[in-house]
Each structure stands twice: as C-alpha cells, then as structure tokens.
C-alpha cells in the first residue's frame, strides 16, 4: 500500500520506496528518505551501489520502476520537466563547455533556464566578483585550471537559483586547497536555502554534510548525522563507518 505523500514545503526531496529495476537486476531497492530545505545531504556508497541510478531518478532523467519521489515540489514520475527546471546539476565529468568563454557559459546556462538577459548580466557581475574571476571572464573555460573550472561549474549550476542542486563527485582530482574552497561555496549556497545533494569518495567531505546516507547493494543501509553514525559504530571517522558498512556488499556488478 503506498502512502500519500504530504507536500511539506520544508522538504525539498522526498523518496518513498523508490525502486529501479533493469531486467532482473534491482539497481535501487525501495529507498526512502527526506531532505530538508538548506540541508547538505551526503549520498555515499561503493561503486555500483546504485547512487547514480538513484540520482538520475531524482533529477528527472529516469522514471522509477516503482515507488514515489517528490523533488522541489514536483513528482519525479510524472513531472520530470518541472523537476529539471527547478534543480541544478553538476558532476566532475560534465560541467561546462571548454570552447566557450566563462561569460558565454554563464549566459548559455542562464538562458537555458529561462533567465532574463538583464538578470543574467547583473548576476554574472556579482559572481565574477565573488569568485575573484574578473580577469578570467573572457577566457575560454578549457584554458582554466581544474579547480577554477569546478568552482565556476558549481556557481553555474546554482545560477538560476534552484531549490536543490545535485553534485556528483564534484571535487574528484581537485587540489586540497581548492577542494576546501569548493566546500565553502557549498556552505554558502546552503545557508542561502539551496539544498545540497552530494556524492563523494572523499570521506573527510562526508564529515561536512549535515546528514549522510550510505547505500549498499541498492538499499540505504544507514542514514544519520556523521556524529551519530560514528557513535553508532563506535569509530573515529567516516572512513571507518564507510568501510564497516560497504564491506557488507555482496553485489558484484555496477
């Protein structure tokens, strides 16, 4: 029996028994959780645990086999276009167009999300200041160091002021200082009410999240604050929590 989901405006993501099957393989197996407005939610799991499939469903790119999900107020099964309009997305693999200039990328993405020219221009000026990017404005994105690119990509992903942004391993390969500056941008966005849904393989970054879920073989094995998880497993850091849970995996395939 499926419950009727309440549209509580404080909840930006609601997943109830969200499930995705590919043939006989259940990639995501009845996951349920809620994420509040302005929360930084860490979505962890081993390679092949089902994180990407779950994220694709939550961002309106893949229809659930069963279960229900509400993201930014819209149903991920029936209102995928509205879901897409109201979220941001960034990954290490896809971020910006290398052969467009910094301002051109911003204008392109702002335009795609239906922002007005004047608004794009005004926000671009502010953003260039905030990132200390004035000198890079007219450079091709491809010529920027990775750390710059990732900071810019994140800023572009929240440029249209989405309710929630999905970050898929945003800091992979980034140098230690830039990685931390990146997280300061995340904090800043969250404090402005943007909900952050983030995956990472850096366990120190798991500590920066308000709450963390750990997926094992398609199911959410644990979900709590980093502090409570460490307490529950009686360990000192999130790496040990992860090692403890992910070793349970019996799944052999991505």
């Amino acid at each position, binding site marked *: 029996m499926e419950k009727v989901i309440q549209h509580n405006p404080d909840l930006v993501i609601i997943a109830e028994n969200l499930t995705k099957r590919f043939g006989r393989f259940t990639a995501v197996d009845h996951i349920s959780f809620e994420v509040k407005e302005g929360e930084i939610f860490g979505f962890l799991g081993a390679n092949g645990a089902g994180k990407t499939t779950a994220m694709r469903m939550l961002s309106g790119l893949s229809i659930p086999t069963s279960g229900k999900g509400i993201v930014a107020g819209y149903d991920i099964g029936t209102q995928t276009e509205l879901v897409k309009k109201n979220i941001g997305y960034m990954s290490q693999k896809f971020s910006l167009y290398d052969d467009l200039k910094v301002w051109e990328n911003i204008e392109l993405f702002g335009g795609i999300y239906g922002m007005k020219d004047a608004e794009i221009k005004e926000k671009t000026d502010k953003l260039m200041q905030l990132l200390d990017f004035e000198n890079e404005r007219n450079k091709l994105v491809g010529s920027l160091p990775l750390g710059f690119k990732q900071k810019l990509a994140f800023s572009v992903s929240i440029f249209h002021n989405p309710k929630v942004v999905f970050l898929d391993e945003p800091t992979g390969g980034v140098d230690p200082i830039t990685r931390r500056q990146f997280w300061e941008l995340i904090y800043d966005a969250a404090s402005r009410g943007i909900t952050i849904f983030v995956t990472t*393989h850096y366990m120190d970054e798991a500590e920066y999240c308000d709450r963390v879920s750990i997926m094992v073989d398609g199911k959410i094995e644990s979900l709590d604050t980093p502090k409570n998880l460490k307490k529950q497993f009686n360990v000192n850091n999130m790496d040990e929590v992860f090692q403890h849970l992910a070793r349970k995996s019996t799944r*052999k395939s991505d």
Partner: protein
Amino acid sequence: MIKTNNNPDIAIQCDAVHKKYKETTALNGVSFSVARGEIFGIIGPDGAGKTTLFRILTTLILADSGTASVDGYNVVNEYKEIRKRVGYMPGRFSLYQDLTVEENLNFFATVFNTTIAENYDLIKDIYQQIEPFKNRRAGKLSGGMKQKLALSCALIHKPSVLFLDEPTTGVDPVSRKEFWGMLKNLKAQGITILVSTPYMDEASLCDRIALIQNGEFLTIDTPKNIVSQYSNKLWAAESDNMHQLLIDLRANEITKNCFAFGDKIHISSPLNPPKGDLKTLDIDKTIRDLINNGHKNVVIQKIEPTIEDCFMQLSQR
C-alpha cells in the same frame, strides 16, 4: 645494447625533464629516481603533470629537454627495450570493450609473445577474482572489475617496472584499500611500481612519494620524513557549530590560515605573522574569544600534520 644507466639498483631515473604543450608548461624540470622494488607515489591534483610524466617514461611522448631512463634504458633511443619490460595502466580504461575478459588478457599476452599460463602465478591473486566472469565483455564489467582486468593485462608479460596512472581515481574507499593490498603483493614479488594518485591519504602506502603541483615537485621523500619536515605549528579546532567556527577563525588575523579537515578545522600558524611575536597561537585566548562569540564545546589541540597538511603548506609557498 649499451645501457644508459648502469646502476642496477635504479629502476627509474629522471633528470630535469621539461615538457610544454603550446603555452602550457606541463613539466618544469622534474628530477627523481626510483629504486628497484620501490613503490613510489606521484601525488597531486589533476593538471599537475602526472600523466605527462607517465607518458614520457613509458615512451609514448618525448620530453622537450632533460633525460630519463627506465630499467637502465634511455626513453628516447632505447624505447623498444623499455616497451618490452614495462607494464602501463593508463588513467582511462583502455582495454578492448568488445572483447571478453579472457580475450583481452590473451591478446596482451600474445602481443608480448607469452601466454596466460606462463605468468599465471603473478596475476593469480588478482585475476582469480574476475575469472568467474572471463566470458563477459570488458565493457560490461563493473568499475572494480575493469580495474582488476586492466592490472592483470599490465602484468601478464611480467614487467620489471609497473606504471599505474591514477588507478584509484573515482574508486570508492573500500575498493581503494583492496587495490593497495594488491600493490603490496606485487612489490613483494620484486616489481617496481610508479603510481600516481590525487588522494593524499594513499601517500602512507608508498615507500617514497613526490608531491607535484603545476609541473614541479614540491618535495620528494618518505611520507614520514615529509611529515617531520612540516615547519608550521598546527592545531585542530572543533565546536558545536563548525561552519560558524570556520568563519570566526578566518576573521582573526592569527587564526585565519585555517581549513576544514573532516570533523575538525586545522589551523596553521600564520605564514606572515602580523607582529613578530605572534608566531604561535594563544590557545587559551582563542578559546575564550570563541566562547564569547557563542561557541559551545570548543576544543583546540596541537596535532601532528597529515600529508595533506604538508601539501597545502608547500603549495602555498
């Protein structure tokens, strides 16, 4: 054939290697040597020059200047000898996706004029884990299994030096640990390993490491020595509101050189102290100030640096 480098204890020798791509300097005078049987880590972020270095040493591209030898052979005029005796696992999965696991392995064995059976001992521990899937196409494998197959293929001709370019990037912490376990076993069999990684926590698993940034080595040493050479003082701070704590510490001239580190904030003594006598942090005063600012459960204690602290200090110079 005359060997360029006659010291049999040296597996890799690299002297003042430079490489530019148009305007971009990828390597700006890199020198180091790797002893036979060593696990040597090249640690640094994307774009630091790691892959360029690997491609020069595996004779895939030429340096603009400088010299390098692998297993005693020069990378320029003796490249054919090098190619026979090194194993190379590039950062991007580069096996044949439409061949099966076994076909890929067979292919690489044949190219090197050997057979799977001949060197099975060397790959046994790794290959056994994917052998149940030997009839599956490589493109259909999971990330972890692809990695094991790629390593098996790089080992099948029994190389004396193994080059692993970011083998653990994007790999979850459990699989990463497993992978390093495999490297340890290979080292025990006498294989020299040059491995690159962006994960600073893997440094301690190497015999020696080079920290690389912007095409230059920041330092080369054992992880232990690098940590002991950290010249700043370092403290770890925590309170009930970590985000606010970072903002408050940043606002103070003495504690502004601070960064989040897992569930703590690391504060290193100022690089350019505002006054000569303020080189060290007055912990009691800092704690008092933080409590006055509304922080609860403030703890600040002196700590030993990690490799990541060292990298951050060296890269800020």
